């Protein structure tokens, strides 16, 4: 269990975070507890989407530029099942994951059977996400351009909570589960084969690795996890439209977070999401304080700068940077990277 100890420490620290909220608010960092929780919930949802991307992209080297296809499918399945078919939110969530996974398997089958790699694979996934976005904008079942509104009905049964602390713990549960799943994956045969596929497909095949099967499994799992992030987004904001669910923004967040945090690492997506969204919000607040009004898109500028800085100075991500300090390495705080 030694391999999981460092992760359990991180999870426990996150679970204890609400204890620090009065301090953070008292120090004037957040306007109120809800500001903090909303930010944290958003970070956790993005983390989950990025954790999904990281399985196919980080460990498997299959760079998808269209994880919005899976995020959006999860979000729409969660919304449409509730509003049109009266399905309970807790029942809808696993179905959202399942359908997201199926979309992943379908896109994966088409792309990998055609032997698409690298930028070709990225472009095809981007195209698929765009097709989904346009279709969702035009079909009646998704509410078309007007989007879908999930009626506000607070209650545990509806997965809607009066307190944002509860939703924080719900999102944290999913992120924690995927963290542990990720570590198990790193230590499994499938994980070893997946990294081998990323490093060198021909060499992997010579060693008996069925690369097509491994890539298909990876993209399916990857898509299912990102779809759960979409479903949680629906539950949190209770409204989605095509540009939110299938928008390029989420494809970018899902791949930027692991790249900034540490690609192909268990904690990379979370670290990256905290850095990206945290700095983005900080920039928004700072600009607002200086100019007295909001400057739209300033967080995207921060994303761009952060990405350039990371690629230039820490190609292995922020975790790779921490790894240089003995303290972290000695205590194995961030664990060992699954390759590269």
């Amino acid at each position: 269990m030694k391999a999981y100890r460092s992760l359990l420490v991180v999870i426990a620290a996150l679970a204890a975070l609400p204890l620090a909220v009065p301090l953070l608010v008292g120090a004037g960092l957040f306007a109120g507890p809800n500001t903090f929780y909303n930010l944290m919930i958003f970070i956790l949802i993005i983390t989950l989407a990025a954790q999904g991307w990281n399985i196919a992209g980080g460990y498997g080297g299959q760079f998808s530029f269209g994880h919005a296809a899976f995020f959006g499918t999860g979000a729409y399945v969660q919304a449409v099942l509730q509003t049109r078919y009266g399905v309970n939110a807790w029942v809808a969530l696993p179905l959202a994951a399942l359908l997201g996974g199926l979309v992943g398997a379908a896109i994966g089958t088409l792309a990998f059977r055609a032997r698409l790699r690298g930028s070709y694979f990225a472009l095809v996934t981007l195209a698929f996400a765009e097709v989904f976005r346009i279709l969702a904008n035009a079909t009646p079942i998704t509410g078309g351009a007007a989007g879908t509104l999930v009626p506000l009905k607070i209650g545990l049964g509806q997965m809607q909570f009066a307190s944002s602390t509860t939703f924080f713990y719900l999102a944290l549960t999913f992120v924690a589960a995927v963290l542990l799943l990720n570590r198990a994956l790193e230590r499994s045969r499938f994980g070893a084969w997946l990294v081998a596929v990323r490093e060198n497909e021909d060499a992997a095949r010579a060693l008996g690795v069925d690369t097509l099967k491994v890539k298909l499994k990876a993209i399916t799992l990857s898509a299912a996890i990102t779809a759960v992030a979409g479903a949680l987004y629906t539950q949190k904001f209770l409204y989605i439209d095509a540009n939110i669910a299938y928008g390029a923004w989420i494809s970018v967040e899902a791949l930027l977070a692991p790249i900034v945090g540490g690609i192909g690492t268990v904690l990379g997506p979370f670290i990256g999401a905290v850095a990206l969204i945290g700095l983005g919000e900080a920039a928004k607040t700072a600009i607002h304080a200086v100019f007295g009004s909001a400057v739209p898109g300033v967080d995207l500028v921060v994303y761009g700068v952060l990405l350039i800085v990371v690629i230039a100075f820490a190609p292995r991500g922020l975790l790779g940077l921490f790894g240089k300090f003995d303290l972290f390495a000695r205590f194995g705080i961030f664990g060992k990277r699954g390759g590269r």
Partner: protein
Amino acid sequence: MLDVRSVTKRFGGLVAVSDVSLTVPEGSITGLIGPNGAGKTTLFTLISGFQVPTAGEVLFRGEDITGRAPERLAVMGIARTFQIVQPFAGLSVAENIAVGAYLRHAGRAEAMARAEAVAAMVGLADLDRPASSLTVAGRKRLELARALATEPQLLLLDEVLAGLNPSEIRDIIPVIRAIRDAGVTILMIEHVMQAVMSLCEHVHVLANGRLIAAGTPAEVVGNPAVVEAYLGHGAAGRLQKGAANG
């Protein structure tokens, strides 16, 4: 164990391998030599399933395996190494070998144990360091170890000695012999004649895509056709004249 029957491979107008037949008896170390560009590596890619022959067939233990995918051949017990070594650069030495070991051992503990055993057999130490930090000789051993970790019955070695210095070659020859003695049949492409002479029981010579000679190493190096393939037309005659005069 391995039967190659009239295998031909064309790339457009170029015939890389032309009507080649050879057999590799079980338990042997069989050599495949020939000048650069003779088609040796192409023949390997045909046997190991990375390319499909234009004509002819490949049999393994009597079963037709022509054009079967490399990953399925690995499951059947055919492993290969690459002339240009292909380590998983981001992984440690042990993890590299474990990728091969996972083929027969699904559990992590067993696969890692197997990887360690194989590493010891080929003489690799310091297994936790990244594969990218290995020397050329180390990478060659890693290539060998990874293939061995799949527990093959037939091992195809593509110039595992190329790029090594004489003392490194002396070190690795007993390793290859030990692999054979452990029950693995070997077909090896090799340029280092010292190794071919001391290891192989039987040698096939390929030139311009055709098999021009076969026999024991001693027979083959004395064959005028082989000498001419390496040194040019008429070389065998001039050499003999030179020897007679000198």
